[in-house]
């Protein structure tokens, strides 16, 4: 799935890219939607050479620069080389990889969902759960422990091993 630019809004998931994202403005865009049958430019770290250069429509100065590019590159000045780079590419790699603040939204959303889930769970405990079985009661649990000791459950390393049968108390 081609990543068509940074659509920062959390709730927008449409494939169609609006014009003001800057992606199609340098090409022959007349409609609101990107023509997916033409080569597309993309700033992607894993695609160093996109299908088409950033600037397709060259004015006179750009065209003359492109002519000069056909000669020996040692004749180009530093500014001209940078201009040629910017004709071909939109962002540099550091610009592409610039950090965003998205993680704050992600973590914040996570905590919000945790909180909401906590409320849901609390409400469930009040209104959804059936009454507790009698086996949960204090008396029942005490009688259960006594019966387990009487039966010598795990007398070597486990449950009954921790009970002192002479002194009738936990070791």
């Amino acid at each position, binding site marked *: 799935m081609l990543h068509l630019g940074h659509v920062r809004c959390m709730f927008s998931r449409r494939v169609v890219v609006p014009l003001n994202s800057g992606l199609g403005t340098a090409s022959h865009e007349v409609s609101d939607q990107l023509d997916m049958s033409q080569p597309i430019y993309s700033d992607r770290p894993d695609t160093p050479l996109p299908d088409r250069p950033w600037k397709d429509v060259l004015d006179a100065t750009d065209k003359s620069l492109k002519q000069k590019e056909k000669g020996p590159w*040692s004749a180009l000045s530093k500014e001209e080389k940078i201009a040629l780079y910017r004709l071909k590419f939109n962002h540099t790699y550091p610009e592409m990889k610039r950090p965003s603040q998205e993680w704050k939204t992600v973590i914040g959303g996570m905590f919000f969902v945790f909180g909401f889930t906590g409320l849901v769970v609390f409400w469930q405990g009040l209104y959804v759960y059936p009454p507790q079985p009698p086996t949960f009661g204090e008396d029942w649990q005490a009688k259960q422990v006594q*019966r387990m000791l*009487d*039966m*010598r459950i795990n*007398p*070597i*390393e486990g449950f009954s*091993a921790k009970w002192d049968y002479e002194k009738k108390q936990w070791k």
Partner: protein
Amino acid sequence: MSYSKMSLAKPVMRGLLGKRLRFHLPIAFALSLMAAAAFKFGVTEPRKRAYADFYKNYDATKEFNNMREAGIFESVRPTGK
């Protein structure tokens, strides 16, 4: 600016797996042996000792009678019932 001949050293192309194995296999064996030894001396030996100690002075009849008096059996009720 003219570009003189600049080149990097040719990267290592062969023997990569062998190098990795020569480094990692002794470590893997050592760690595995240590884990096995730790389990043997931390778990199995104490457990064998615990069982031996338990059964050294174990009186099965006495235990049975204690359990019977506690009333957990259905085939024999406590004495006096």
